[in-house]
Each structure stands twice: as C-alpha cells, then as structure tokens.
C-alpha cells in the first residue's frame, strides 16, 4: 500500500496543477487552524478561571455548624451546637468512599487584631489546628523543615508550620526560622517548617499568611475541648462528594439530634459542585469550538471532494486505460482515497502548525503585556492535535469516498471510447 510507485503517482497527480491543489488545500488548512485556535482560546479561558481554584482537591466539601431552625426531640429551635472530634470517626464508619475527613479549628481571620508575636514583631494571621492529611486537600509546598505529622498529634506537640508571608513579616531576611519560637495568643509554638502555596486568588499573599499547628495541640492550647470548628471532607476519586454529601450531613443530624428536615443547621460548601459547574461550562464551550471548527473544516472537505471529482472526470480515460491493462478497481479506489487523505493531511498539518504558531504569538504577547484577567496560557494539548489528525484522516476518507466511487463507476469500455 505504501510503496514508492503509489507515492510517486500521488505526487504526480497533486503537483500537476499546483495552483488548484493549493487553493483546495487552503480550505482544509483554514478549517483546522480555526479549530485549533478556538480550542486553545477556550483552554486559555479555562486556565484563567480554574486558576482561581488553586491546587485544592476539588472533590471536597466543607461543613460547619449553625443554629437549628426546628425543634426536635424536646430540644428547642435556635439551639447552637458543635461538631465533636468523635464525629469524624462516625462519618468514617457510616459513609463509604471517603478519602479524607479532616476536622479543623481556626483562630484569627481577616482583619483580626494581632494574634501572633515574635520578639518585637507581631501580626494578624489565620492559625489552623489541623491533621497531617490537610496538606493533600489544600496542597502546599513545604519549603523548609516539615509539615505536621501524627507524632505531633499524639503527643500534642506545640509546633507550627508558617507560611512564607508570615516568615517575611516576623523574621529578618537571612534569619534562621526553624527551631525558633512564636507566641500564638500567648502560647509558645516551636517553628518546625515553612510552606508556600499556589494561591486561590491573585497574587497569593493571603495564602502565605497562615500558620498550621497540630489539631490536638491547638485544642489544648486554646481550650477547645473536643469541639471541631469545621470539617474538610474529600471523597475518593471514583465517587463524587456531591453524591455523598447528603448522607454525611444526615449522620451529623442524627448524632446531634437535629430535625431531619432542618435544612439550615448544618452549613456546607460543595467545592465539587462549583467546580463541575465551571467544568460543564467549558465542556459546552469546547463543544461549540469543535462545532464551529468542524463546520469550517467541512466546507474545506467539500472543496477537496469537489476538486477530486473534477480530477476524476479529467482522468476518466486514464482510469479506463489502467483498468483495461488489468488494474484492480480496488487499487484505483485506494489510489484516489490516498490522494485525498494525503492532500487533507498535508494541508491539515500546515493548519495545525499555523494555529500553533498563532497561539505561540498570542502567548508571547500575553507574556509581554502581563497577566490578563480570566485568560491565561492558551494552549492545545497533544490530545487535541491527535484528535485533529484523526478528524483529518476521516475527512480525507470522506472527501475521497464519492470521487473514488465515481471513478470506478464508469465502465472501462465507456471510459475508453475516444469521442
């Protein structure tokens, strides 16, 4: 099939009328360029928006307590309650497919007063009591020392991992951080690590200005008893947290004697649902890009098909001769299909390269003018290129099909008739 004579013939046919070949090729070239550019623009938009999610594990929900809105089992409405540390185990026991159930406590917050002191320096930071797993749910990079571990939890060690933002505030530039103490609400904690985080919003200052300490030490130091501020729950990859959320909340309702119909007592934020909403938006966008791209490509394909038909018409006699000499009709069909596929693929490749160069230029431009809101790093993946190639091969086949069929439809005897 891929012998030298076939290729020679394909090239002979396609180069016999350069102008026509190039004009024909342009349709496919243009179609695939548009497809690539649209898809990469969509990707750029997607990158821009998804950046807001940072690195956070998206199959995650957050859950906290509020006051009840219904009386239940002799308890009044408007009652306040807290999650307890035992609740974590109850959820793990009763709801399957959960990967992490992390209880969390928190001190400080936006625009709070200074709560952390080191020597003469002081600052206001979020301080979290956490389990080691939190680093998988809200990923951060440990830049020196280590993160919280289970020995810290079990022994209630008063150790802290501080963000680079905290370090910059409280320490001199070249000062050693590990092994020093910071005072959090009057309690001394030993700094054992620093971290850096890809931010959730913009420059990321906020994300770096946090302090993580062991959950157990936090509870003891700040008198939280066995109360839990809120929980971060992540499901296994195979299942969605949105589907499990109902049963998790029900476990809590039963445990804390809350009316089953009480919609407000347990507050939550389903990150997965939000993320999926964005995902499906971009899914739709991608579908539109494919649709438009393929429509444009289609007109290119029709062009190729048309030209092939004309070429066949011109070559009717030649095909008749070849058949009289004993060429298999299949071989003729194959030849025409290959001509068509070859033409589509070559022009399509040129289109892909042009699209890629265009994207490259846009990226260079974006780099030089600085970040643009909601648009970042437009790109096409190898996957898209592969899909484009498959589309091209299929298109080439489609474009060649009718001409190939018509080429062998004429009987050799009719094709040879000289008049």
């Amino acid at each position, binding site marked *: 099939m891929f012998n030298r004579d076939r290729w020679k013939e394909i090239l002979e046919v396609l180069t016999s009328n350069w102008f026509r070949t190039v004009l024909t090729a342009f349709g496919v070239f243009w179609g695939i360029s548009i497809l690539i550019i649209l898809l990469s623009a969509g990707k750029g938009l997607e990158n821009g928006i998804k950046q807001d999610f940072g690195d956070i594990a998206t199959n995650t929900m957050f859950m906290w307590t509020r006051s009840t809105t219904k009386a239940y089992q002799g308890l009044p409405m408007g009652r306040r309650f807290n999650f307890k540390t035992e609740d974590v185990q109850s959820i793990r026991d009763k709801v399957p497919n959960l990967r992490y159930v992390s209880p969390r406590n928190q001190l400080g917050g936006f625009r709070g007063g200074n709560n952390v002191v080191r020597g003469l320096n002081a600052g206001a930071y979020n301080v979290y009591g956490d389990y080691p797993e939190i680093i998988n749910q809200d990923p951060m990079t440990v830049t020196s020392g280590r993160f919280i571990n289970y020995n810290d939890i079990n022994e209630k060690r008063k150790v802290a991992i501080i963000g680079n933002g905290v370090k910059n505030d409280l320490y001199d530039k070249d000062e050693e951080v590990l092994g020093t103490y910071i005072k959090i609400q009057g309690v001394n904690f030993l700094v054992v690590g620093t971290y850096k985080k890809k931010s959730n919003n913009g420059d990321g200052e906020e994300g770096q200005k946090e302090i993580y300490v062991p959950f157990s030490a936090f509870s003891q130091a700040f008198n939280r008893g066995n109360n839990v501020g809120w929980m971060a729950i992540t499901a296994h990859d195979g299942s969605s947290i949105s589907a499990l959320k109902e049963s998790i909340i029900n476990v809590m309702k039963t445990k804390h004697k809350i009316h089953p119909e009480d919609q407000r007592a347990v507050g939550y934020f389903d990150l997965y649902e939000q993320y999926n909403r964005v995902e499906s938006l971009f899914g739709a966008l991608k579908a539109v890009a494919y649709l438009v791209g393929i429509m444009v490509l289609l007109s290119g394909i029709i062009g190729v098909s048309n030209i092939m038909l004309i070429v066949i018409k011109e070559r009717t006699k030649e095909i008749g001769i070849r058949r009289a*000499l004993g060429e298999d009709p299949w071989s003729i069909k194959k030849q025409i299909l290959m001509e068509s596929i070859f033409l589509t693929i070559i022009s399509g490749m040129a289109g892909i390269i042009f699209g890629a160069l265009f994207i490259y230029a846009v990226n260079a431009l974006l780099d030089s003018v600085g970040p643009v809101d909601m648009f970042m790093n437009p790109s096409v993946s190898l996957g898209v290129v592969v899909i484009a190639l498959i589309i091209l091969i299929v298109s080439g086949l489609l474009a060649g099909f009718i001409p190939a069929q018509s080429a062998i439809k004429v009987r050799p005897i009719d094709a040879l008739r000289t008049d």
Partner: protein
Amino acid sequence: MIEIKDLHKSYKMGSNSLHVLKGINFSVEEGELVAIMGSSGSGKSTLLNILGMLDNSDSGEYILDGVPIKNLNETKAAQYRNKFLGFVFQSFNLINYKSALENVALPLYYQKVGRKERLEKSLKYLDQVGLKEWAEHLPSELSGGQKQRVAIARAMAAEPKVLLADEPTGALDSKTSYEVMDLIQKINDQGNTILIVTHEPDIADMCKRIVHLKDGVIIEDKKIKQVRAEQYV
C-alpha cells in the same frame, strides 16, 4: 485458444435496441494472426471488446484458453485481462504523464512484479520495439508510430496469451502502418496469438486469416498467404 459460440450483443438505446452481433461462431488457434474486417459500424470493435472482457455479451459462450468467461465481476475481469490479454488501441491510449518505460511497466505493476524486475523487463520490451533510447521520454515527445510501438511493448510486457488490436494503424500514415505491422508480424512469428480489427485491406493481407463481418454475422472466414510488411519498410 479462443472459442466463441452463438454470441449475441445488442445495445439498448431508449426504447429500441440495436442488434449488433447476431450469432457469431468462430475459434482461434494458438499462434494465429487474424484480421477482423468489415465496414464501419459492422460490429468489429464490439466483438473485440467482448473478447477483451471490456464488455459483456447478451448470450453465447466464450472460452479463452480453456477458461469459460462468464459472469465476471470487475475485479475478476481486471485480473483476467491482466493475465490473458494485451490491448492495442487506435488512439494509442498511453498515460501522458508517465514515461514510455513507465507505461510499458504498468501491466507488470498490476501483476505486482517488483520494481527492479519490472523496469528491467519493460526495458527489454522497449528494446524489442526499437525504442530503448526513448525510455525516459513522455508520450507527447514521441511520434505516432513510436507511440503505437510503445503501446505494443506495453501490451506484450505482461506476456499475454492473446494480443487484441483495434485498428492499430488507423491513426498512422501508410509507411508507419507497415512498420507497426512488421512489428506485429514478428511478434506473431514468436508464436503469439494476435487478433487485429481493421477495415484496410492491405493491413488485413498482412495477417494469416481474414474474418469478414457484415450485419452482425461472419460472412467469410478464410486463411490467406501472408504478405510480409518488411518489404515495404
């Protein structure tokens, strides 16, 4: 080699049909050189096309080298044409973007003969028709006689059992015609079976047997003493 019995063929044109062959019977032995004669429109080409499996008869029997030719699909017909038959046409029918050598090599290509062997063999046949030096030339660079000789080399390249020629000299002046006939006679001398359609008596006289066609039937079928073309060249 060829045996046909009661062959009929008519062309349908709208509501009426034209009965062109009305019961043809004849056979050709190996090594014969047969001229099929008749006036224009007498059905010579139609007969030759059926013999060449380019067209189908309506009824009748056709046996080629012991193989009954009947109900062939296109793939099979192409195979048989390639294996059994060589064609020479009045209008040469060379492929104009291929060199003389490539044209000759075509039937071998369809036989899936390897490239090297194919070109060697083709060159040998081009040499036999005296056109070795013209191997790389395109048909447009050749004279009519040269084109027809390339076509003959092409027809012979696949070593067919029968060579079919439809007015091979019809587009040539008489001197070139005789050159071509000389070539055909020499090929026949080597034992090849050849059928030539012609309406020119001098060409027919250069064959060994003349079959005369009129109104769709054979009215005469005689062996003759061959006139050698060599003497006119």
